[in-house]
């Protein structure tokens, strides 16, 4: 099955021609040419690398450079569910979740109905390191189980390591529904509600004036 030229790998070339084909050219000019070509190949690969790095870095930084506003208005429940003068635990599903987020897509918060349509909605996360604070109605305090941060009923700092009061959501009352502006884990640098969203002044029947 051998091809005829395997016996004569040089094919039909005469020995002189064959030498030109297979042996490296070793003149000083050829060498500088190869060095130049090698440098060129490095440069080419560097350029390709940079071009490849752009989409990779953009992909990696996706969560950072995502300009979409994560915050939206979410219905937390009926106003009537929150008795006046009391503080109750509520939860909602974060507006941006996936099916595979499971329970972690849920977020808890504390709703304090001061009176009528006047509310305070606090993030569950302690302003110190984000642990879930618990409400104690008798002592009218929020206590953090992690490092003992304590807050008064209006969310202001009472004691412990937190530097500030509880994070507060902006809310509005739309009809019978209590709505909050939410969408991010509240931390010292990521606010609970969008910065450019305002508390909506409420009229007597609980309809936000922005609607009218």
């Amino acid at each position: 099955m051998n091809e005829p030229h395997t016996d004569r790998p040089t094919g039909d070339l005469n020995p002189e021609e064959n030498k030109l084909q297979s042996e490296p050219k070793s003149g000083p000019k050829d060498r500088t040419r190869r060095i130049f070509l090698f440098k060129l190949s490095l440069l080419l690969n560097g350029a390709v690398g940079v071009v490849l790095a752009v989409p990779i870095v953009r992909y990696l930084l996706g969560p950072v450079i995502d300009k979409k506003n994560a915050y939206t208005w979410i219905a937390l429940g009926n106003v009537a569910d929150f008795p006046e003068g009391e503080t109750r635990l509520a939860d909602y599903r974060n507006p941006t979740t996936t099916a595979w987020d499971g329970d972690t897509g849920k977020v808890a918060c504390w709703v304090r109905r001061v009176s009528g349509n006047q509310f305070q909605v606090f993030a569950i996360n302690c302003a110190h390191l984000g642990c879930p604070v618990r409400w104690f109605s008798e002592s009218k305090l929020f206590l953090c189980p992690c490092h003992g941060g304590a807050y008064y009923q209006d969310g202001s700092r009472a004691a412990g390591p937190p530097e500030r009061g509880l994070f507060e959501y902006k809310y509005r009352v739309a009809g019978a529904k209590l709505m909050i502006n939410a969408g991010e884990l509240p931390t010292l640098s990521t606010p609970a509600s969008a910065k450019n969203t305002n508390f909506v002044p409420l009229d007597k029947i609980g309809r936000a004036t922005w609607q009218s």
Partner: protein
Amino acid sequence: MAELKKKGVQKAGIEVYEWFEHRLGLAKPAMEAAAHPIPSSSASWWYVFGSAATVLFVLQIMTGILLALVYTPSANHAWSSLQFLNNNVELGWFLRALHGWGSDFMIAIVLIHMVQVFMFGAYKFPRELTWIIGVFLLLLTLGMAFTGQVLRFDQDAYWGLGIGASIMSRVPIIGAPLVHFMLGGPIIGSATLSRFFTLHVFVIPGLLLAGVALHLLMVLRLGINEWPMPGRIVRKATYEAEYHQLTEKDGMPFVPDGAWKDAIFAAAIILAVMACAFFFGPFGPTGQPDPTIIQTAPKPDAPFLWLFAVLSLLPPSMETPVILIAPVLIIGAMLLLPLVAGEGEKHWSRRPVAVLMVSVIAVSLGIFTRLGTTTPWSPVMNAWSSDAVPTKYLHERTPLERQGAIVFQDKQCRNCHEVGGEGGRRGPELDSVASRLTEDQLVRQVLQGGGNMPAYGNALSPAETTALVAFLKTLNGNDLRPAQDASRVLTGENPPSATVPGEKRPSGQSHLSKESPAQEKP
């Protein structure tokens, strides 16, 4: 006949070996490396920790791969897949336990290895870079521990991520992008778990493998540190010749003369990991990662308890600077150590500062870890409803004082204050509070707070305050003399309380009550 056969088999075996060796060429350099000469003083039980750390790393890789056969890196299912591993997969609990205990052992051995290298001056010339790579290996090992704890994806993991995000958020200017980069989205969720899975399974192990390979190559290339002698000074000009003398003239081959100790210790360590895994079982998972279940007291795994303690004990104003600056200083100091102190004495008896540093750091880490397990700064969330007031504090008390005891319980004072050895330790224990604070001071402290106590002015009615203070005034410890206001004593008001034996005046009558001491004045 049988002997002939045996010889034939042997010959065939050698031929197969030579066939491979001719192509691979690995056996010769491997054997040369194994038998490289070491100083005879280095064949010591003190030199076994590096190899033990490597063996534990291999155990972690093996058990990790086996766990990945079942584990599901999705926020929705990770926790259930671990329950499944614990309960439904044949010996799944044991593999999880091996991986968990292997991790704790690896951190412990890496730290011991580091202390040994430091105390023996092994980081000095020419092994500076070996130490620097070792520092990165320590950080990567801790990174594995943190990301591994996240993969458990239970309540502790969920809120631990919240703590991580809160720390990131303290970085000035780029705080918010850092939080998003860490979480992979606006909240803690599946994107977060996926990136920690990637870190734990691909990125950090890859870096660790490369780092360990470099670290080992350098140990082979530069030789193991000799046993330090007081007065034998490391000098860049002469050290290598001296070391050559030690290995070539008085040395011994690493395998087998030194390696048998490494091998025995490695076997003992693996056996210890297996024993811990068998007797103590796997770590968690604790409660499911549902952020609406807030009845939880999150805590990090053992290697990070000291950090948890430091974060709770720092004054609020110092916290952000310390969180941001301390790691840079600590890691920087560890990296610069061999470059600053690359020459000089190796022996610990001539390096008192080094000994002092190791002792102070070890004791501090130990104390902080201990505090991290007992968490005296955390309120005991259910103390007010679960820990009763000791009956001796209710005996022969007036109705007002007993009412005060009820107020004391109802208002959750117990969550932060210990009485009769039960309750929180956030604030001081109150068994002898009346010997420290006068009545007026008690009222002021309760209503206005201060010294890290919240003010209860809004949470207590005047009647409740009166009763509470009346009760607190009965808490005199072992009949200590009650605290008294010197100015009032001078004017004859507010004489020492009658809880001191022998005095007639009934106790617990506050000046806020109708029969105040002032009105009793003759």
